[in-house]
């Protein structure tokens, strides 16, 4: 990665940490995560209560933070008339996309890890190692949605369109996707196999995150213990799906920027 890309990563990181929406959502997440930890502590609850509560919180907030971070990466430059200036630097277009991803990923790590670390530190000492398991999958979840946000940002020509799509995608993946699967099961009266439903869950990063945490909190046989016949998808399947979610939208974004006339 060249000098321009390295400078761009640092620039994006610093700039995004000043974005008020990122700060507000990050602070709200930290507040709620700390609240969950404190609640678990005062009620002398087990990690079995605090962990799933944090998982729910993370699956709501982290996709939103990540999408907000990514949505204006390219279209924002285009609207400010700085995309041409950026691309006139000695840098390839694909590098611009990748550098923006890394810089914003850094900001996302800071925004989400602050809340998570606060929650872990405020949790009862025996619960802390269990809650520390949340960090890796949380960052993967954020990485996947950041990547999607970046792709949106390259595909649209107006920032307001990207912002509207952020809301739509967040609702789709965080709420409607699971509701849709539930509806499918009801409509087909169980005609759809558990294996297919599990596979479909895996193809939603928010669902994949929940399965990931289920595997970490309850072990690989968690689904069978819940009465389902299908085992939890193994790490060998989950890892490539994570990899695709994190990298494919970034790659597509790089392709879109490289093939299009950047500023007409």
């Amino acid at each position, binding site marked *: 990665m060249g000098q321009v890309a390295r*400078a761009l990563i640092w620039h994006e990181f610093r700039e995004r940490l000043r974005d008020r929406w990122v700060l507000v959502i990050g602070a709200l997440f930290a507040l709620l995560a700390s609240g969950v930890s404190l609640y678990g502590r005062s009620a002398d609850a087990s990690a079995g209560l605090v962990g799933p509560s944090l998982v729910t919180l993370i699956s709501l907030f982290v996709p939103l933070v990540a999408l907000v971070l990514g949505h204006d990466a390219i279209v924002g430059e285009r609207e400010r008339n*700085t995309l*041409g200036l950026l691309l*006139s*630097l000695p840098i390839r277009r694909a590098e611009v996309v990748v550098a923006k991803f890394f810089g914003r990923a850094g900001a996302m790590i800071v925004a989400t890890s602050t809340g998570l670390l606060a929650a872990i530190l405020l949790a009862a000492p025996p619960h802390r190692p269990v809650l520390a398991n949340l960090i890796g999958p949380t960052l993967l979840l954020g990485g996947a949605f950041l990547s999607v946000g970046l792709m949106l940002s390259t595909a649209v020509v107006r920032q307001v369109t990207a912002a509207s799509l952020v809301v739509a995608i967040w609702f789709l993946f965080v709420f409607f996707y699971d509701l849709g699967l539930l509806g499918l099961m009801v409509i087909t009266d169980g005609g759809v196999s558990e294996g297919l439903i599990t596979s479909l869950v895996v193809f939603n990063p928010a669902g994949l995150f929940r399965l990931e945490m289920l595997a970490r909190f309850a072990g690989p046989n968690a689904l069978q213990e819940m009465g389902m016949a299908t085992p939890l998808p193994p790490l060998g399947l989950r890892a490539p799906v994570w990899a695709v979610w994190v990298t494919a939208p970034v790659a597509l974004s790089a392709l879109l920027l490289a093939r299009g*006339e*950047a500023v007409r």
Partner: protein
Amino acid sequence: MRQLRIEQLSVRFGKLRALTDVSLGIAAGEVVMLAGPNGSGKSTLLRVLLGLVRQDHGRLVVDGREQSVNNDFKARLGYLPEAVAFSENLSGHQVVTFFASARGLRSSRVDEVLERVGLTHAAKRPVRGYSRGMRQRLGLAVSISSVPELLILDEPTGGLDQEGIGVLWSLLREWREAGRMVLVATHDLGLMEHRVDRMCLLQAGTLRADDTPARLRDTARLPARLTITLRAGHDRIQLLIDELARAGTIGQIALSDDALSLDVQPDRLLGVLSACRDAGEVVRHLRVVEPGLERVYEHMLTMDS
């Protein structure tokens, strides 16, 4: 870079022909202005040079050798986009620091260029508090930070106050004297005409004219406007009007209060001035206004259409 030539450049956006066989050159120490109506292809031409738009046909030649718009070439360019608006979350200093570090410049260069454009006092303030003119100055600071061999400015006068315009003039002078090149796309012909060495006029994607402002003015042969202030009530006023008409004025001679206004072709100007001299004390004051580049530009567009 001693010479840059654009040869037979053509660009299409779908069915729209943005540029058709445009050829022009810039030599070291030249400031060249690109003029033309909206959609004439000025910005497209700049964007081809910056590698933002790919040409369908044509080539760039630098010092006699064909040049692609690669990273080496881009490292020699500086660019001010039209109506640039940097991230509002950062200070002016941080904005310039990013572009300077991206080009591997020393950090002290940031302060130098901010001072050069008169933004030192506001360097630490967030860009959101900048006026349009200050943002334009910030864009100028970014564009000159690497001391580019070719400075490309798209509508550089937009939003600039008198002091900002002064900064721009001094930059153009500095670039010219240092033997570097400047390519300016602008609608502000009146402001720019005495600051550029050549004007290239684009219309509907084709190059209509490419010459010095003086030669373009000569070619256009537009009349000069004379305003003659008279001694009120003098009995030779009508005689002067008759003499002026005979000497070759164009159209009506307008008489209002104590002044005459008339248009004169360049080749009749001496005759008209002689008539004024011969009229003696009836003429109190005489003012000749040559046609500005804006009038030349309008005339050429009208002729071509």
